[in-house]
């Protein structure tokens, strides 16, 4: 199995080529061409016990809306896993950079108001809609500079995590 893994902690991401193969005992693993001595056991759903050269790591997996996180202790890494042989992966990768970006609701809540209209220009970080949860209001911001192609949020409506609120292109 060969993966392209993009890992980021805060700004910027690093891309790694990861090869994992079943060996006679355990796994044979190469990271960016370098062999790594790894043993891995899933101890319960979303919890992985890793042994790397005798060092113990407990890695927790979290999926929020479309994001995949790996938690090592208190440090959270956002991870994207791609199969470099899959055409779809490559297309998606291209779309991420240039094409339309969907804005998702990060949590359950209620739409309070819209801050921009469809077809308006927005800057990266500009507020698009306001979502209320637990008596607090939160501005959901645009991930990029562009034009608001569609707003699917309606004031007063309830939203769930992962619901598309708007599309910025």
């Amino acid at each position, binding site marked *: 199995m060969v993966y392209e893994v993009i890992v980021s902690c805060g700004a910027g991401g690093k891309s*790694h080529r*990861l090869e994992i193969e079943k060996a006679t005992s355990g796994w044979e693993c190469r990271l960016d061409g370098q062999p790594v001595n790894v043993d891995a056991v899933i101890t319960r759903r979303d919890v992985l016990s890793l042994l790397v050269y005798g060092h113990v790591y407990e890695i927790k997996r979290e999926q929020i809306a479309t994001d995949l996180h790996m938690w090592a*202790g208190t440090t959270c890494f956002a991870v994207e896993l791609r199969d470099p042989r899959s055409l779809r992966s490559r297309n998606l990768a291209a779309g991420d950079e240039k094409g339309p970006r969907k804005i998702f609701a990060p949590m359950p809540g209620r739409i309070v108001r819209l801050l921009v209209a469809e077809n308006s220009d927005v800057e990266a970080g500009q507020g698009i809609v306001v979502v209320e949860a637990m008596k607090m209001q*939160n501005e959901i911001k645009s991930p990029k500079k562009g034009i608001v192609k569609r707003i699917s949020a309606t004031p007063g409506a309830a939203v769930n995590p992962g619901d598309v609120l708007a599309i910025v292109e």
Partner: protein
Amino acid sequence: MFKKILIANRGEIAVRIIAACREMGIATVAVYSDVDRAALHVRKSDEAYSIGPAPAAESYLRMDKILDVAKRSGAEAIHPGYGFLSENAKFAQACADAGVKFIGPTPHSMEMMGSKTRARQEMEKAGVPVVPGTSRGLVSPEEGEEVAARIGYPVMLKAAAGGGGKGMRLVHSREELRSAVESAQSEAQRSFGESEVYIEKALVNPRHIEMQVLADEHGNTVWLGERECSIQRRHQKVLEEAPSPIVDPDMRRRMGEVAVKVAQAANYTNAGTVEFLVDQQKNFYFLEMNTRVQVEHPVTELTAGLDLVHLQIRIAAGEKLLFAQSDVEMRGHAIECRIYAEDPDNNYFPSPGKITLLLEPSGPGIRRDSGMYEGWNVPMDYDPLLAKLIGYGADREQAIMRLQRALGEYFVAGIKTNISLFQRILRDADFQEGKLDTGYLDRLLAKGNQDVTSAAAEPQIEELETIAAIAAGMFAVLDPTSPGSKNADTTGQVSAPSNWKQKGRSDGLH
């Protein structure tokens, strides 16, 4: 003793009260709103009844519905917990009228402490130190200017019926006073239906220290030690400890005696808390009395060696306190962290949602009072408090070490929590030295996030980054059908694994 108690609350405190009832052999009745059917307090109770839609005003605040459930279920007493109806004198009266025992003080004591000006008047009469200022509502802005000139700026305007920072204004100079009085009055009118506003000298960066009291219905009142509650944000406590790092035995005794005097002046019964502001010279002033069990009661339970909820129930059942003040002994140190569903990376904005993974700490010196479980959907309709993690040790240093260990084992996925905030606080030098005041947390947060990832015990980020990459691949290989593996597309939905693809790939491995 009661045979059955209704708990008019939800979340961790309802679960905690149910535990006390079970220990005492008392049957429990839970109430729940539409979004709380699967909540932990419902699962843990013996009987449970629906009381309406999610908004608290239509469920947990509906006295008629709760009393109706009490009648239907045959509950003899109601424990109100904290928040919701716990400090509502009308509810306490309605319980009395319905022949159900309200586990708390009498409506009369609650009313007296409910109005801050009235409480101040009573305390002045009883000779209790209060923050300099007026103990009656201001009749005009001119009167406010006069008082402020006498006690000195800065001053604090406060709504008599206030709470939670509403109707409160900090005023630095005479020029600001008039408009501040007017806006505080109109905010008080809107929030509490009462525009009465009074004036107090504003203490600069005070400490917030409170004293636990307990009074039976036979005239016995005792104090059980203080709690340091200076670590706050948006007038919300975040971390509490007992004892306070600055209170010595003599100050403790004086505060305790004043607190008992406060309780006696109000003919107080059951558990209560007297809040004090403490200035830099360690002078303490009466602030208000909370007429309920507090969120932070566990730190007192651990250091005083008493179960406050058991005692609340015994007192309400008419039992006498079986110990005197001289029997009360404080031992060790306890610190409580309030685990909130809040996003530290987004200005601590609430973060409800489904808990997909929950790893909980326990072990030496650790107590956890929790209202959550894995798979539960944290509703967006209520306070974001999920659980409380309490560390106990022979001294403050050991309590801190144990909490740090336990926080490292605490993991909640699917929603955001403020667990990382406590790791920051506990390793902060000012905190470790006990240099605390109500401005502490804002100052810590203003320092920014730089120090979060540089915990000494953590291996280098770069090393962890490669570990995260390997882990992501191992997860996908060992558990290919789960979310996040190669079969998950960008909408987050997991597509069914293609058998052909799987076959092809496993063949390719040989």
